[in-house]
């Protein structure tokens, strides 16, 4: 690997300029294919256009752009200027524009956003970011509207960049505005990509197919940067289109000869539910090497459903791998061995709850755990007990990672950095264990909710409900409930209210759902309860853990319509 991303991409373009770099995939066969040389030429033009408008080295450029062929040279153009790209989610129609802008202002303060690069359609929404005194944004740029300079070399100096300087800003858990900014250096991204390429045994003949959004570390690092830096073609689909029609993934794999893809666990269930009959007629999955399950707890049932449905199209157990990854370690910490099915353990559930891994008895309560593989090169993992002591194989504790590709800390957030990053060890907040050299992730120390691969903090959901009339102030908790059908979690809310009438309680429930929608959170279950129903923690605040258990014990054993108590 070269010393920085631009040099690496340039070397690959010189070696084989005509090779596909990115296939911008759309369902109606109007794909746009970026050759390596064209992509970099266009990126240089984008860099010159950005420079003319005042973007400088070190500036953070938020990219808020939908599935669009010129996104890629624009992103690369930001890197060419030695500025720092940060891909953000495009707002969906349900989020209130004011809430969205408030979120961006919060993000600009935390992450230090300097520029917003977006589409004309979004300008009326985000335009106020520049004038707000609490925002760091210097300007809104509409690069897709402008003509990029034809002779960019005239205005661009040769790129000189310290390999340890930032090359991108990713955002980890939370809703917009409260997410933590993770800054990664050229060294971290290139080094990690190389190590991860070894872990998945990347071959020149590989082709990555991905529908993952690029604001997510799995889409950004595993699909986008791995492909670009290793010189492997990337078939990039539209995430919005995929979720409307999941079968498009198989169409893209079949049409483009895909060999590698990364999926959060829920995607295995969705594919099994939605792709059937005629959709499978032209699908062939025989050429796939790996479907990597990541970003959510890996469920054995999801893998089995996938195999049951798609064995007929060529899916085999040896294709189903898994990895354990997070933005803070650039991406992966572990990966299962390519060509070998992820290992599965059936353990005693009660013993596991006590922190011990014991094989399940024939008639006992069983928990099935799927391995996330072994540490990739440059990463070490430890299991740590509550007292900080390192635990041995078969003992459950918090997973701690030491990585050569570690982030430097959360941007402008020393407090969270101190909590998570100690002596260059990242305390993940996940519970797990190791056995036989394999690593298993089984739960979370933190109250985080993972919905379809997206991490949500319950505090953000609870805060969104503060102003809902009828909910007693401070008397609401949010948590995640497992949904075996979708293979992911759903957001549940318990709120105390004094409302008694059926009509006003229905209106309150609806108001809670709408308040969630306004911050782009879908609340799937609302439990309205009487005052003093919620169990308090020792600190006097409603306890999420205890109240979740109370809901599971008392409310979810009753029919659905009685959730509203």
């Amino acid at each position: 690997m070269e010393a920085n991303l631009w040099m690496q991409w340039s070397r690959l373009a010189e070696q084989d300029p005509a090779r596909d770099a990115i296939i911008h995939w759309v369902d109606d066969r109007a794909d746009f294919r970026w050759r390596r040389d064209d992509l970099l030429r266009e990126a240089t033009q984008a860099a010159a256009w950005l420079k003319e408008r005042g973007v400088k080295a070190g500036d953070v450029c938020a990219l808020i752009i939908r599935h669009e062929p010129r996104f890629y040279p624009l992103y690369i153009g930001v890197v060419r200027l030695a500025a720092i790209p940060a891909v953000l989610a495009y707002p969906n129609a349900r989020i209130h524009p004011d809430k969205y802008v408030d979120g961006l202002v919060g993000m600009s303060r935390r992450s230090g956003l300097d520029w917003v690069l977006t589409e004309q359609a979004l300008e009326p929404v985000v335009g106020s970011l520049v004038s707000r005194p609490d925002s760091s944004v210097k300007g809104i740029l509409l690069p897709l509207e402008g003509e990029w300079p034809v002779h960019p070399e005239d205005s661009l100096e040769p790129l000189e960049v310290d390999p340890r300087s930032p090359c991108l800003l990713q955002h980890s858990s939370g809703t917009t505005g409260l997410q933590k900014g993770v800054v990664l250096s050229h060294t971290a991204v290139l080094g990690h990509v190389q190590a991860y390429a070894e872990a998945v045994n990347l071959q020149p003949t590989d082709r990555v197919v991905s529908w993952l959004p690029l604001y997510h570390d799995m889409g950004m690092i595993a699909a986008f940067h791995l492909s670009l830096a290793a010189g492997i073609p990337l078939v990039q689909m539209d995430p919005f289109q995929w979720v409307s029609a999941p079968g498009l993934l198989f169409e893209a794999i079949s049409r483009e000869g895909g060999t590698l893809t990364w999926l959060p666990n829920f995607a295995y269930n969705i594919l099994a539910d939605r792709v059937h009959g005629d959709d499978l007629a032209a699908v062939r999955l025989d050429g796939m090497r790996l479907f990597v399950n990541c970003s959510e707890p890996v469920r054995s049932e999801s893998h089995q459903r996938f195999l049951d449905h798609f064995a007929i199209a060529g899916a085999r157990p040896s294709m189903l791998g898994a990895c354990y990854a997070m933005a803070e370690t650039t991406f992966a910490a572990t990966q299962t061995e390519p060509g070998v099915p992820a290992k599965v353990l059936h353990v005693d559930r009660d013993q596991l709850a006590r922190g011990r891994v014991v094989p399940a008895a024939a008639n006992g309560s069983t928990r099935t755990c799927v391995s996330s593989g072994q540490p990739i090169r440059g990463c070490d993992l430890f299991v740590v007990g509550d007292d900080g002591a390192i635990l041995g194989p078969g003992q459950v504790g918090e997973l701690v990672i030491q990585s050569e590709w570690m982030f430097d800390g959360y941007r402008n957030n020393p407090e969270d950095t101190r909590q998570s990053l100690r002596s260059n060890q990242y305390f993940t907040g996940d519970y797990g264990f190791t056995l036989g050299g394999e690593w298993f992730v089984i739960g979370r120390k933190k109250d985080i909710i993972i919905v379809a691969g997206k991490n949500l903090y319950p505090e953000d959901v609870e805060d969104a409900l503060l102003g809902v009339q009828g909910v007693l102030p401070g008397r609401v908790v949010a948590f995640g409930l497992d949904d075996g059908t979708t293979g992911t979690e759903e957001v549940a809310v318990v709120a105390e209210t004094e409302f008694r009438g059926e009509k006003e309680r229905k209106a309150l429930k609806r108001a809670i759902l709408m308040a969630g929608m306004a911050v782009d959170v879908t609340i799937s279950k609302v439990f309205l309860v009487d005052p003093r129903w919620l169990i308090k923690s020792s600190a006097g605040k409603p306890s999420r853990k205890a109240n979740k258990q109370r809901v599971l014990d008392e409310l979810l054993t009753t029919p659905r319509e009685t959730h509203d108590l």
Partner: protein
Amino acid sequence: MISETLKKVILAELDLDDCELREETVASEVPGWDSLSHIGILCAVEKAFKVRFSTLEALRLKNMGDLQALVTQKLKQLSDLSA
């Protein structure tokens, strides 16, 4: 016009007591109807009406009217086949 059966299936899937569903209603206007629950809704509608939607048919759905039209078309195909 959205049929009462289709409305009931969708409201049950979203765990909603009531919500106005017109032909021009889009998913973002309905509490709880996001990209993930959309999948569950399509599965529930398929199950309730004993029909199947292809990938491309699902992709073309833009509003409630499109979904109603697709269900009606599928039911007519079934009826023609059995006639």
